[in-house]
């Protein structure tokens, strides 16, 4: 199993001149520790305009700082909105390549399309178009990385032949993923040979069915890149403490606050009648799973909170479902003290992580991926 930490960079009110700096400092301290402890990934979201919920609008810059302050942990976009009003695919390819170079080949590129009304309307993007533009982004980015010169005449954008520079350090290119929240996106991921970056914990049975379907379909995929990334990661809330009650209590604080804050955002689905967003995305699923501050504190099955044994049991259950790893949300809105977060990570790394790690640490996912026969990519 692989383990990552997932950074939303939420900044609670009241805001002071120092609030955002402090959140970023805390996050970087967690990343440095995660690197030392052997976590495999740090993922940073890209959100815009989401007051308090996420102040992470420049994830490549944050991830550059992560890369500069660490040696081994892989740095991941979780995820880049593939919406042309947010950014051109050219800029995504260029900036990702720079990050791959300065991180020494540690980049993971997660892709997605945004699901909130404030973001989509803030950039004047059409929610009906985002599936289509995402598809074009993920087809062109690996070509921009691997072709010496690239030209394109597509539906979303066109460009004359140019050399898109620099090229990423990882060859043939960094691993690519897609955020899976809406039903059926795991099929899109499989058919394109993309890794499945689960952002919404579901029930065991439902998850198992999705993972099996993904595994089956990716065997016969037509990959958009030069290799197949067939990993499936899920997300969970981490709070590990020798005192199981304290571990659950603090974990539920994070989960409840995440759910509560996510619920305040207007989803695209809520205000725009559209087929493009069959579900409301990540937020409502987590909202259902984690309850609200008004509910009595309760745990839900499969949550990675409590004693090291509790956490290990939950991970075993997800491993049995077929996941290759779990990314943890371990802090949100600074609801638990930084020292608790760091201690929880340490205890997890000492007592839990070794039970799921066999052999060497994770290397380049690109190297581990399934190569595509010559002429296919």
């Amino acid at each position, binding site marked *: 199993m692989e383990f990552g930490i997932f950074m939303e960079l939420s900044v609670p009110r009241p805001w002071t001149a120092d609030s955002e700096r402090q959140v970023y400092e805390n996050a970087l301290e967690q990343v440095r520790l995660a690197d030392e402890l052997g976590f495999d990934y740090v993922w940073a979201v890209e959100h815009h*305009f989401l007051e308090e919920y996420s102040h992470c609008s420049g994830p490549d810059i944050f991830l550059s700082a992560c890369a500069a302050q660490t040696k081994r942990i892989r740095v991941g976009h979780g995820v880049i909105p593939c919406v042309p009003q947010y950014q051109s695919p050219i800029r995504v390819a260029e900036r990702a390549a720079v990050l791959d170079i300065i991180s020494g080949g540690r980049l993971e590129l997660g892709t997605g399309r945004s699901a909130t009304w404030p973001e989509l309307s803030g950039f004047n993007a059409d929610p009906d178009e985002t599936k289509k533009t995402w598809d074009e982004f993920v087809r062109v980015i690996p070509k921009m990385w691997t072709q010496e010169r690239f030209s394109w005449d597509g539906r979303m954008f066109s460009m004359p032949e140019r050399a898109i520079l620099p090229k990423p350090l990882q060859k043939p290119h960094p691993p690519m993923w897609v955020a899976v929240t809406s039903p059926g996106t795991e099929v899109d991921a499989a058919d394109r040979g993309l890794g499945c970056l689960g952002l919404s914990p579901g029930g065991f049975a439902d998850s198992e069915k999705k993972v099996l379907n993904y595994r089956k379909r990716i065997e016969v995929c037509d990959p958009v890149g030069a290799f197949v990334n067939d990993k499936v990661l899920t997300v969970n809330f981490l709070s590990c403490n020798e005192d199981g009650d304290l571990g659950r209590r603090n974990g539920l604080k994070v989960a409840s606050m995440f759910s509560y804050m996510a619920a305040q955002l207007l989803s695209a689905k809520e205000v725009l009648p559209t087929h493009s967003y069959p579900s409301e995305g990540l937020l409502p699923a987590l909202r259902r799973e984690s309850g609200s501050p008004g509910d009595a504190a309760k745990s839900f099955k499969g949550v990675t909170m409590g004693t090291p044994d509790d956490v290990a049991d939950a991970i075993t259950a997800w491993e049995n479902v077929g996941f290759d790893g779990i990314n943890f949300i371990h802090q949100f809105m600074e609801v638990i003290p930084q020292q608790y977060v760091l201690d929880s990570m340490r205890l997890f790394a000492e007592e839990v992580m070794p039970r799921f790690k066999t052999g060497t640490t994770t290397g380049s996912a690109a190297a581990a991926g399934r190569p595509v026969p010559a002429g296919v990519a």
Partner: protein
Amino acid sequence: MPLAGSLDIRPLVDGAPEVVLDDHELKVDDVDILQVLYEIRVDDREALVPPALNPTIPLVISFLVYRAKESVYGPFALAQLRLTARSGVRPRCYLISARCDNPELAEVLAGSWGFRVSPGEISLRRFHDRVDCSVHEDGRLILQTSLVDPVPVTGHDVQYPPGMHLARVTRDGVLKPRIVQVDSEYVFRRADRGRPELTHFDRQAWGDARLVPDIPVSASFAACDLTIANVRYICNPDIPASEGTEKVSDA
């Protein structure tokens, strides 16, 4: 923590409907529904909703218009002005005010569900290229809005969050301010969406001059069977809904 409402409800309580909690539900077949949504521009979001609720980011107003050719109270049209909000983690819309052209039904809507409703003349006309709505009060135009260029969608694509209506409800023998949650069920026969158009909106007449429409969001038109369910939840407007919600019926 998310922004919490800070609306001072005291000036509104006297005019709030007195609701008798009972098992009353209203079923109406073949209702036409127009919903037009606009983001609003406002400096003080919190001041628009009571402390029980949270304003959404961004705030959106909804013009929600029902028209039925028949019901147990006869034909009617009802136009509501609502504001998107959250009750804890639940999507809701806070009712600012409503107009109804059927006095008998208006009395029932106020007494059973806390609709802050007054008389109005409401026109809702569906064409193939647009749906037009106008609302007059005492002969004066107070709303003119449209859906332009309708295209079919499914009923699953359309959402009307439950209403939150400020009312007065007897608790422990005393009439107290409460927010009544109004849950409605919709069985869709057809649905369209289109471009929203707002050509006239008298903010003062609708009860809150601070609601300045800014960015058009969406418009939908649906034909459906409507059930307004009996009241199941009420909440204290002065404290967060997650703490002040009371279940008053299991049905």
